[in-house]
């Protein structure tokens, strides 16, 4: 399977990464090289095999449903590129 330039643009859009026209051609050949490499998996017989979902066979740990942390809003917004008080500031989303 290989991707065309329309598909490269669609993937870039889904990935929320801006691409220029020059980059699309490059990306197309790089992505196709990787896809050609993984193509060999098509020949593996996986009939009746369960996909791996847990690396170590274990029950997912649960903890008591209690508040264990909080009141650290200053720390949470400290790294925001733009903030006001305890809010993250973004361009207008809803008209």
């Amino acid at each position, binding site marked *: 399977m290989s991707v065309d330039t329309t598909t490269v643009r669609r993937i870039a859009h889904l990935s929320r990464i801006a691409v220029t026209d020059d980059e699309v051609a490059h990306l197309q050949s790089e992505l196709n090289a990787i896809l050609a490499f993984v193509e060999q998996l098509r020949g593996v017989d996986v009939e009746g095999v369960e996909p791996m979902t847990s690396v170590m066979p*274990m029950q*997912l*740990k649960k903890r008591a449903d209690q508040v264990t942390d909080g009141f650290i809003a200053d720390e949470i917004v400290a790294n925001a590129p733009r903030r006001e008080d305890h809010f993250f500031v973004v*361009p207008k989303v809803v008209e």
Partner: protein
Amino acid sequence: MNDLTSLTLAEARDRLRARQFSATELTQAYLAAIEAARRLNAFIKPTPERALEMAKAADERIARGESGPLEGLPLGIKDLYCTKGVATTAASRILQSFVPPYDSTVTSQLWRDGAVMLGKLNLDEFAMGSSNETSAYGPVVSPWRRNGSDESLVPGGSSGGSAAAVAARLCLGATATDTGGSIRQPAAFTGTVGIKPTYGRCSRWGIVAFASSLDQAGPITRTVRDAAILLRSMAGPDPKDSTSVDRPVPDYELAVGRSIKGKKIGIPKEYRLEGMSGEIEALWQSGIAWLRDAGAEIVDISLPHTKHALPAYYIVAPAEASSNLARYDGVRYGLRVPGKDVREMYERTRAEGFGDEVRRRIMIGTYVLSAGYYDAYYVRAQKVRTLIRRDFEEVFANGVHAILTPATPSAAFGIGEKGSADPVEMYLNDIFTVTVNMAGLPGIAVPGGLDKDGLPLALQLIGRPFDEEMLFSLAQVIEGAAPEMPSPQAWWRA
């Protein structure tokens, strides 16, 4: 005692306890070595003030007789581990301004045990690479050169800064992480020891995520004993990481020097690649002989799905990365590039913030998870992963204690030599290491000697889940039997 940096971590620990020198003196020696080694670009950010503060506190604890297991030992920290109040970049422009308000669980355990932080080490951006060339801070230069050559070589990756710093004696040991070989391959390229423990052995909390079902923390050190000492402090269950496993941490150092008599070592025929260099084959045969001479029983084994591990990895790892890296959106932390609306802000931020390799992997991951391709790529790769793990389970069920393979298909290569036209050329570096991550097993790289150009080569041992002790025992036998690993010539000294 004019060169404290020539000591191993175990030696430094014992001499600090015997008060032959202070943690401050030891730290100063390392800070001077780091200052004189800027050409290697191993550190993104040395933290000398913090190091001296921590060393002073360690000296006070030593004076009071309250030494922890790593008291006063100066370490380098891969810049993928969050460190409270110290910028943590993942070697990416997108995180260049990020200062975590917390420490990763692993680093907090190192400080709990008395270690001193020398600074943050360079790596491939988001740990994606096998040569440390994808860093936004520039490539790390290996302290090793070919005999009679001054060409700059790669230290391997992604933990290239960790491996270069340990090999060049810029720290006693370093933290590293391994998703497809990122501890073991750079250790192999630099003549150091690197262990990727069993998945779930070390907490991933506070380590910048790449591929969550594959990522594991581990140390890079000069000796097997040093790796055992560091891993004991790094490992352990953590309520903040639901995949960390609730098992007590053994005193790994006790396994170093333990007899390996009667242990069954598997030699997998699938690791004998067509066109593999004669030197790698010869190294492998030496490893077999060293273990046999120490009383191990050598058996031929088969791991039939080995050749599918690397392609399956290049579906699973990018898929998980595309999901993990969705968080870098210019809103909560890191770089923001303005746009006319929120979507354009996201797209510009991520285009400028991520480097080429990271963008490529996010896009591959997005593609294999997208509607219509999910079953054909992602689900199939996870099924192949089950088959890879099953191969190992069958071998271990037949009584094999550990598996011996080469660590890498070649010695270190030149900066700019690989992967510029075809990314897959670089990916092939991880062909012997990636199976171990896919199956969640522990693996250790241990030096085996030098090649004809004078560059280090290494062997890999793969163990049963949570049997890191066996790996330390076996690796120490190889370390003891192999020709002594010399230090690289210090050409980089300013």
